[in-house]
């Protein structure tokens, strides 16, 4: 073991730009507040010219930002030794992070297109702990060879581990499989379909709406009001045309965003690890151990249900997949819904090849879900009518929407305990999710009943599964108490072997 194998490396100089950018973003609110606030105060209090103060303030802030970015860069070193990865960082509070290869659960890589010619990327390493909200080891800008080295030492560490712990492992012989047994790459046609059927347009409308609100507050009202007066004079057709144009723009933003995000999505399985790659402008790679998967989620929004398409995600005990909404990692962006289970079975062996028939919510319980949905909607409608008077009555259109939301939830609710696994179907905001969970991954479960539900003999059932760093509650609501009791005792009497997540 020569000593030059483990020498401390600095990050690539491009990391300076990365730290600079991060500093600006972190300090942005401080910079803006102090520039505006302090600048104007000093102008009032002293006789010094306001603009001069602003210039001094701005340049000193700029200097500080650059100075600290340089310091952060200088104080960041990493070392890839045969036993572990060491990261040293921090200007005032020095942190030394040691990650032995055996503890690594998930590795992700993120490569922006402008770094590809330089063969640089960001590597994130995560272990089994669940303290922070971020992965433990982040190497912001390193050569691609770093990940290769890490993988090499990881495999070595695994072999060493197997040899010292005896051969009670069920895993195959210690060779690096160069041909992974199953690979799935999304076709452009499927990707197109996925991006087109996403209901992501709605959040974008919400975002644009929020931006409009911000703008409305800052620009003097008279400009906006006169613009609206102008618009009102235009013909109705033109107004409708503008709205449609606006919706098309939102749709295009959502569509292009998804294409860029999931471009050439690929999933493979290798040595009990799932490996996914996606993205055009930023190529992201996730490698996660199979046993970190807590639950498989088959998700469909109402549009995709109509087209018989589904998205497959996994809930993992990992923080890295957090960039895909709420700690789920997308493993198959889009697939024909009847093939979903079968395809997933190739990558995750405990997944059933076909989904069992589910016990459904009895019709008499539909009323409760619809009632709750309508009541919740009234919380929005009543203030609207009260404050906005006549214009507020437009919000009444939310009532039938609430009705259908409740109906959708009721129709898409169901569960099954076949094959020693728990399958739960849950309809929520026009999106159906079917969770398939091995019983050993259920952390705890609850049976709930209000005193009024004792008369109707109904109960709620909640199952808790680890997701990311926190908990995911999978709920079954308003089921007959007898069914809930049966499910409770089924989960209780299951003799599971203890496998920590």
């Amino acid at each position, binding site marked *: 073991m020569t000593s030059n194998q483990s020498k401390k490396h600095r990050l690539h100089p491009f990391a300076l730009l990365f730290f600079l950018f991060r500093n600006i973003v972190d300090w942005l609110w401080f910079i803006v507040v102090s520039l505006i606030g302090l600048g104007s105060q000093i102008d009032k209090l002293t006789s010094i010219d306001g603009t001069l103060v602003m210039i001094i303030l701005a340049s000193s802030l700029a200097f500080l930002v650059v100075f600290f970015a340089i310091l952060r860069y200088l104080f960041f070193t990493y070392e890839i030794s045969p036993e572990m990865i060491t990261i040293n960082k921090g200007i005032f509070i020095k942190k030394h992070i040691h990650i032995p290869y055996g503890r690594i659960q998930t590795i992700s890589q993120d490569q922006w297109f402008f770094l590809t010619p330089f063969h640089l990327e960001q590597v994130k390493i995560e272990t089994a702990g669940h303290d922070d909200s971020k992965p433990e080891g982040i190497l912001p800008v390193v050569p691609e060879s770093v990940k290769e080295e890490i993988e090499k030492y990881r495999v070595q560490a695994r072999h060493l581990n197997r040899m010292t712990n005896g051969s009670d492992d069920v895993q195959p012989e210690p060779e690096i499989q160069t041909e992974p047994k199953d690979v799935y790459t999304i076709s452009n046609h499927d990707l197109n379909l996925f991006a087109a059927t996403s209901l992501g347009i709605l959040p974008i409308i919400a975002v644009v709406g929020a931006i409009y609100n911000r703008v409305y507050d800052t620009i003097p009202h008279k400009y906006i009001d006169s613009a609206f007066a102008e618009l009102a004079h235009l013909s109705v057709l033109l107004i409708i045309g503008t709205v449609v144009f606006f919706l098309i723009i939102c749709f295009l933003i959502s569509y292009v965003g998804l294409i860029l995000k999931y471009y050439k999505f690929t999933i493979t399985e290798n040595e009990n690890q799932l490996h996914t790659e996606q993205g055009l402008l930023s190529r992201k790679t996730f490698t996660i151990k199979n046993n970190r998967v807590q639950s498989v989620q088959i998700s469909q929004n109402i549009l995709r249900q109509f087209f018989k398409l589904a998205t497959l995600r996994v809930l993992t005990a990992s923080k890295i997949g957090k960039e895909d909404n709420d700690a789920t990692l997308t493993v198959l962006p889009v697939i024909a819904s009847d093939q979903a289970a079968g395809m997933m079975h190739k990558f995750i062996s405990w997944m059933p090849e076909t989904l069992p028939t589910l016990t459904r919510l009895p019709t008499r319980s539909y009323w409760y879900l619809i009632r709750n949905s309508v009541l919740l909607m009234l919380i929005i409608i009543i203030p609207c009518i009260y404050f906005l008077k006549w214009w507020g009555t437009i919000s009444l259109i939310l009532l039938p929407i609430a009705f259908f939301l409740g109906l959708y939830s009721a129709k898409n609710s169901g569960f099954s305990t076949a094959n020693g696994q728990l399958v739960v179907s849950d309809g929520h905001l026009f999106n159906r999710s079917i969770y398939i969970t091995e019983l050993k991954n259920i952390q705890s479960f609850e049976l709930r009943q209000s005193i009024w539900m004792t008369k109707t003999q109904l109960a709620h059932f909640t199952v808790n599964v680890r997701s990311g760093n926190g908990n995911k509650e999978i709920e079954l609501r308003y089921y007959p108490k007898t069914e809930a009791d049966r499910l409770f005792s089924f989960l209780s009497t299951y003799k*599971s*072997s203890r496998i920590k997540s």
Partner: protein
Amino acid sequence: MNTTEHLPTKIKNVWRINACISLACFVAAFIAALIASHIFEWQLLSTIGNVILVIGIAFFIIDMVLVDYRYRFFEYTLTDDSVLVQKGFIFRKLISIPIARIQDVTIEQGPVLQSQNLSKVTMTSASTSHTIDGLEPETAEVLRKQIMKLALEAVENDV
């Protein structure tokens, strides 16, 4: 071994003391808001202060009234496979934590619990945690040992 237990009666004192402490915090916030509104001549702060005081008193009354109810309707059972906790009467909950899922058991004693010589037991799984508000220290220790023993047995039953 499958006996259903209630909390020791002293827990009611703990809950009442906690309610008083909460009330004290609300009152302090009210006083602070009152003083601030005088210093800064800001009417809004004193209204906020009043609201805080009303909320604080409401919580206090609710907490005190519910002490007996909470005591009566809290039970826990340690079986071979799981810890069962049952609480509430109007809103009932039955929680099961499989022993095999329990990652660790923590016993804590804050100042209020120390004054009553009780300990709080927290059982943590990989994603949830469940608390028994207060037990006699010996009972807490016995419970912890039993859980850990059963948890270890579960590991040995590993196929």
